[in-house]
Structure formats: structure tokens, C-alpha cells
């Protein structure tokens, strides 16, 4: 008889526990935010921290109420607007970056120019500069062109910021495809345009999904440019969140945590929906077929 063995892929109790502890350490700040979102003002500030409390939805109500009473003062949060802004701006800019970037990546991969690598490197260098270095010229450009405070301005800016990353990532996916498959399609009568849409693009769907997720998270979290280049109407959540801090009665941790909890949901949903693609996308090219 062969020795009894664990089924492949099933770890022992010790390892499972170890992994659980590590996961908990990473997840703890998120958990704390979510817990705080359901606490009253005084519970949120209690020291030592309160673990058992009566949950309240008051913070979430406040997020979406146009005005509420805090002491004698009426404050409008308008967070429904900011949520819309964040979704609209991140979604549009990532979409633009994907369309332009995927086409560019296909070009770089299949129709290399003389000095192809140099161009690719130049594209990459635009991401090497710290954002803070370029913020002043961009701010001035936006002032002069009238793009400051507009949707168009911030969407274009984010699209341009997502482009280098999109091009590099999509190029690596296109590079991985078998050239024989494309030759076969040519012989089967496909024009170059149909070849791209019918053969190449469907093969890199996982890559597009992975690129989109990374781009969305990057844009969703962006603060610096949004702070300086969005106006009252086009403000995104990270900026709006920062502006709720302060006021007469100090930081409203409960309200802030509620906003953050809501802020997390779209990211979790996107990652959850695309997780299979994401895994295939990020492991693409690392596994020899």
C-alpha cells in the first residue's frame, strides 16, 4: 500500500492558521474602518476602543443627506455627487486609456518602428517623474486652456496618466500570442482589421480586464491632481473626504469611515467580478505554456 497522502492543494492546520493570521493582520485596518462606520460619534472616539456596541446607520444617512445638524451648524455633504464624479471620471479615463493604449500596444507589438524600444522607453519615462514635479505646469496649462475644474480636463489627464501603463501591459499580452495563429487567420482570409478584432483582441480579454482593474484602482485613489484640478462640481471622493476633516467639533470619524466603506465597495465589486480574468492577467507570461 502506498503511504497515505494529503490531497494535493490541501494544507495542514498549522499553515492554514498561519495564513489566517497574516490575512487578518492585512485586513484589520479595513475591518476597523467598517466597524467605525457603524459607530456613534462617541463610540468612535472611545479610548480604549469599544468592541461591542449598538450599530447605527446614522453615519451612512449623513453621507447622503444634503444637510444635517451638527450642533448649530448645517453642513451639506453632497457625497452622492462626489460618488458619481469618481465613477464617471475613473470609468471614462480608463476606457479612453484602454482604447488608445490597446491600439498603440498592438502597433508596437506587431508593426515595430525603427527604434521601437526607444519609443516604449520614452513612454515609460513619463511615469518616472513624481506627480508633484509636473503639477505646476499642468495646473497652469489647465488655467490657460480653461480645462481646470471641468470633467473633460481631469478625464483627459487621467487617461494620459493611465496610457503608459496600459501600453506596456497590453504590449506584453500581444507579444505572448502565437504568430502562427495570426498567419493562419490571414490564410483563412482575414484582413488585418478583422484579424485584430476577431483573433487578437479576444485572446487578450484577460489582459484587458487586468489592465482595467489596475487603472481603475489607480485613478479611483488619485488625490493630488484631483485636489488641484477639480472644481466644486467635479470633485472626486478622495478630495471630498479630505475636506470633511476639520470643522468645529473635530474629525467626524464615523462619517469619514462610512464614506470610506462606501468608497471601498466599487473596488471590491470590480475585483470580485473580474477576479478570474485578473488572476490569468497577472500570471500571463509567467507560466510557460
Amino acid at each position, binding site marked *: 500500500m502506498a503511504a497515505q497522502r494529503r490531497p494535493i492543494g490541501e494544507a495542514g492546520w498549522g499553515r492554514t492558521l498561519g495564513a489566517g493570521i497574516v490575512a487578518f493582520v492585512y485586513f484589520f485596518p479595513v475591518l476597523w474602518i467598517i466597524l467605525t462606520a457603524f459607530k456613534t460619534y462617541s463610540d468612535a472616539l472611545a479610548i480604549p476602543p469599544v468592541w461591542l456596541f449598538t450599530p447605527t446607520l446614522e453615519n451612512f444617512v449623513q453621507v447622503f443627506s444634503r444637510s444635517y445638524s451638527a450642533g448649530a451648524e448645517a453642513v451639506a455633504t453632497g457625497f452622492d455627487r462626489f460618488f458619481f464624479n469618481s465613477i464617471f471620471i475613473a470609468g471614462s479615463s480608463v476606457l479612453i486609456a484602454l482604447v488608445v493604449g490597446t491600439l498603440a500596444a498592438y502597433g508596437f507589438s506587431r508593426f515595430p518602428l525603427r527604434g521601437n524600444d526607444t519609443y516604449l522607453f520614452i513612454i515609460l519615462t513619463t511615469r518616472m517623474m513624481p506627480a508633484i514635479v509636473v503639477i505646476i505646469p499642468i495646473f497652469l496649462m489647465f488655467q490657460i486652456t480653461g480645462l481646470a475644474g471641468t470633467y473633460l480636463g481631469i478625464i483627459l489627464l487621467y487617461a494620459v496618466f493611465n496610457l503608459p501603463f496600459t501600453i506596456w501591459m497590453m504590449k506584453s499580452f500581444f507579444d505572448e500570442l*502565437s504568430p*502562427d*495563429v495570426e*498567419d*493562419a*487567420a*490571414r*490564410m*483563412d*482570409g*482575414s*484582413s488585418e482589421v*478583422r484579424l485584430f478584432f476577431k*483573433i487578437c483582441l*479576444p*485572446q487578450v*480579454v484577460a489582459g484587458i480586464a487586468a489592465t482595467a482593474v489596475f487603472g481603475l484602482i489607480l485613478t479611483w485613489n488619485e488625490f493630488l491632481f484631483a485636489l488641484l484640478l477639480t472644481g466644486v462640481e467635479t470633485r472626486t471622493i478622495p478630495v471630498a473626504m479630505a475636506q470633511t476633516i476639520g470643522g468645529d467639533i473635530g474629525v467626524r470619524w464615523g462619517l469619514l469611515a462610512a464614506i470610506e466603506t462606501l468608497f471601498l465597495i466599487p473596488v471590491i465589486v470590480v475585483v470580485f467580478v473580474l477576479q478570474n480574468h485578473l488572476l490569468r492577467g497577472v500570471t500571463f507570461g509567467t507560466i510557460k505554456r
Partner: protein
Amino acid sequence: MSDLRVSGLVKRYGKVTALDGLSFEVAAGEFFCLLGPSAAGKTTALRAISGLERLQAGAIRFGGRDITEAPVQGRGIAMIFQTFALYPHLTVRENLAYPLREAGVEAGEIARRVGEVAEKLRIGHTLERKPTTASGGEQQRIAIGRALVRRPQLLLLDEPLTNLDAKLRHDTRAEFKRLHRELGMTMLYATPDELEALSMGQRIGVLRAGRMVQVGTPDELFERPDDSFVAAQVGSPKMNLIEGRSVRDGRRIALPFGELEGGPWAAALAAFPAGTGILFGVRPSDIVPAEGEPRGPRLASEVHLTEPLGDVTVLDLVANGVPLRMVLPEERAVRYREGDHLQVELRLENSHLFALDTGTAIR
């Protein structure tokens, strides 16, 4: 008529010359094999004919039409790739339908022809699956099906058996012969494997460094190789090629184990001055143990290694320092052990002679 005429093809990649004036003709309905070692230009030749590769010089005529500059699409040529090159994101049914869809064939006709091809190639059970879930042999048949479904006039096959295991190779060779017989299509088959070429090709073209060395039927190549390269490529186990030189006005040749005269090449050799470097070629089957009345020159040798291959055994002999391969039926070979001394006889009437410098046959 769908005959293929290829003349003077030249293809260079930077400093590397892949095709160096390649010319050959394939008759309509013929099964023609391109045989040559890797990097001889087989794949480049097929890609040029298919239109995937642009040429620096040369002309390709197919069915009386000059297609040298014609676009890939619409040449009426299909190709089976070494890697199969199936569309991984499409089901097998969609893979088979793809060339027809691209040609604008209407849906009912597509369904009928896909069904027909799937039945002929026994891949009906895989139709709704992705090709990656099919076995190697099935993937091969799917690739064949995709090539056949649009009824091409010329089918190019680029080492299609390389990615299959030995058993499947044998079956698929038979499959290709059957398809060729049934469809009567012109087929151009590139392979580095002489067994594939000899067993399937009606005619074989032997390629070396982007040039055609010799074209002929399997028998012609086997019996009358024009070149020492062809002699070494065709036949298994390989022909023994022994370096030597001509002596006495070229009537005899001197080899390390002695002088020989009277081969079928003797008259032709006379035209060469004495001392000309030559390669003496004798097939392993034309070396036999010396028994009874001598019918040819005999020489002493020692058995270095025996290699039983089932019904035949290859004996590696050493005669006066020269390695010689001999092949014997298994029942005759069993009595020889490694280290045995053995008197062998050469069937000189079947021997070949080549010029050492050019490799050209002397006959």
C-alpha cells in the same frame, strides 16, 4: 490546372539567406515533399508560397497565375502549421467555420461543410469544446479540417507531425495519404524526417541552404543520389560515406582499408586525375558477412556495437579504423557479439562515388 511553379526564390533576413534561388515544380494533384535539415529553408519556402513572406526575388506561379505579389487572402492555398495554430478562443466548430465565415459562405452551407469535415476526420465529438481541451491527435485533425473545409487547391504542410508522439505520427502519415487519395489535392509537405518524405511523397525535393539539391521519386533519390548530401539524407540507417582518393588515372580508389576498383562509377572516374579526393558511399544493406564464393571486395572488421531494432539489427563495425554501418536481419545478426571479428563483403555494384569537394555524384 492547379500546378505550382516556383522559380528563383530569394529571401534574406538581414545577413542570413534563407532561400538562395530556390526552384521547383509540383504537378497538379501531386504529393510533393520538401526534405531538408532544419534551417534549410523549408518553412520559408512554404511561407513564401502562401504569401505570408515577401520575397527579394523570384516568381511563384500557381494554376497558370502569377501569385508572387498576390495578397495572402484569396490565394486559394491552405496551410497546416507545426504548432497547429488553432484559434484558442473559439470552439472547434467555430475554428472549422472560420475560413468559410471569412469567405462569406452562408450559414446553412457552413454548417453542412463543417459537419462533413468533422465526420471525415472523426472530430465530431469535439465540436463544442475549445481546441485546447482536445488531445494532440485531435488538435492535429482539427487543424487539417480547418485547412480542408474551404477546399483549397493547394495544401501546404509545415512539419505537421513534429508535435505528435511516435504512434500518432504513424497513424497521421496514413491519414495524409488517405486524404490525398480521396481529395486529389496538390499537397506540398515540408519535413526534416526522411521516413515521412519517403513514405508519403510521390516526389521529393531535397533542400540544402535554401537551394534545391535534387528532385526525384523516393526510388530515384535512394538509388541514384546526385549528391553526397542527398545520399546522407535519404535512407535509414544512413549511407556509409568514406573519404578517399582516386589512384592510377582514376581507375581505382584508395580507401583507408584498401584499394577498390570496378564499381559502376569506374568509367566516370577515369575523367578525373589521380589523387582526386572522393567520398565512397555504400549503404548499410550493401555490406554483408562474407560467405561462400566472393562476389565483391572483402575486408576484415571488428563489431563495435550492435543495435537491435526489432526485425533488423544495425551493426557498427570498425574496419582498419574506419567506422562502417551494416544492417542485417535480426536472425542473422544474433550470432555476432560486440568485439567479434568479422569478414564482410561489399556489394560494389550498388556503391556510389562523390567528389569530395563539391559532393557531386561521379557516375
